[in-house]
């Protein structure tokens, strides 16, 4: 049976991926330099401003910090907020090379 949308009106469920793989929208990819990222350098939980500011909640509060590229839209807020400038926004086409 084909899965079809039977909703009479516009409805969605609050769940990861509900709006599709929004990472496909990304033009710029955040790339973390582990030699500058504070939690990695210190080896203990610290800073995590990228996690705090990410409007899509795709940054992990872990060591190392990880970004879920399936849903990161590449807005660059993390790079803007990062105190040691550990995050660089790289064009997707360049990142693939």
């Amino acid at each position, binding site marked *: 049976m084909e899965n079809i949308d039977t909703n009479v009106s516009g*409805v*969605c*469920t609050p*769940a990861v991926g509900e709006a599709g793989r929004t990472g496909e929208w990304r033009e710029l990819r955040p790339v973390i330099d582990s030699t500058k990222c504070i939690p990695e350098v210190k080896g203990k939980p610290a800073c995590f401003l990228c996690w705090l500011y990410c409007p899509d909640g795709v940054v992990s509060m872990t060591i190392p910090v990880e970004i879920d590229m399936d849903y990161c839209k590449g807005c660059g807020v993390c790079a803007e907020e990062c105190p040691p400038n550990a995050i660089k926004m790289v064009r997707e086409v360049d990142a693939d090379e």
Partner: protein
Amino acid sequence: MNDVRIITGNEAAALAVKLAKPGVIAAYPITPQTSLAEKLSEYVEKGELKSEYVRVESEHSSLTVCISASTVGARVFTATSSNGLLYMHEQLHWAAGSRLPVVMCCVNRGVGAPWSIFNDQQDSFSQRDTGWIQIYCRDNQEILDTIIQAYRIAEEVYIPVMVCYDGFILSHTMMPVEIPDSGLIEEFLPPYRPHTILSPDDPKTINPVFFPTRRENSEGILCDGYMEMRYKLQAAFEKSGEVIRNASREWAEITGRDHGGLIWEYMTEDAELILTGMGSIATEATLAADALRDEGIRAGVVGIRAYRPFPKEEVAQAFKKATAIAVFEKCISYGYEGGVCSDLKAAFYGTDIKAPIHDYIAGLGGRDVKTGEIVDAARATLETVGSGDTGNKTIWLNCYKGI
């Protein structure tokens, strides 16, 4: 023993709402709707109607309350007029787009500027494309019966319904109205089955941003995009005509009162001249048809009861034998003509109906429309047959146009 009372159109509407037992009512008073809102608050205050009556500061809010209450499963009612309806404009679209079976009365009144408190139909006409079913009533009995039918229709097709009736002419004029037994309403009107129940156990977001394309959701289901949701509304409208006809027929079976489905006809069987319009002006046209028949002119009337969905097939059939058509309407699409006239012409496209169609704009802002004026206008239309005059301009009835 039948319960027949001599009451105003607004009281007939209030009694209908009382019978339909909405869980939530929110209405902001505006002339000429006011006595309807007052009557309903009185029923609630006295405990005769167990509804939540929400007092609001505007019409935008009154419809918003209804949208919210309907979303969580309540049957709802609101009513307004004129600029109040215009103030609801955004939420009219929202109710229809959310596919909520809100029922509203629009007590038709001219819109400002300049101010008028008197009757015409520019208010509801100007909200034609908001995705609401619009039904226009002829008399107070039809107002009561149509509101009951409106809940049945709205809750079956999930489209909000606007029950329109002429301000003062019906809203404040007393007529005998038969009040149906409440047991009969329970038989006719099944409980509302909402499609949007919100529950903490099954969290949903209603009306999030929809994208231009379809999307696969978190469960891998390919979900509709914005355009598909809009198509679903149009598809629901396309089947709503049958639902309106059925509601009308079943109501007639249990009450003996048949107001017609999408249209009603008066002496059209052999009519060469057909008069048409919506609401009380069409009732008056029946008197004009009688007078024209006294003159030996075979006249008849087609009343447009449902304006949306527009009764395309019905009118193509009803006007088939007409040699002249006179449209009387209390609204206009500025820069073109009255809406009923345009829609009739569109419905006739590709048919054999080639009769001249004259569009009489009448009774704006409460200007009195006398039967004799309708008679003269319709006769003048009939006299143009064969003259090549197809009537491609509006004719303003009883209006001083300067020198």
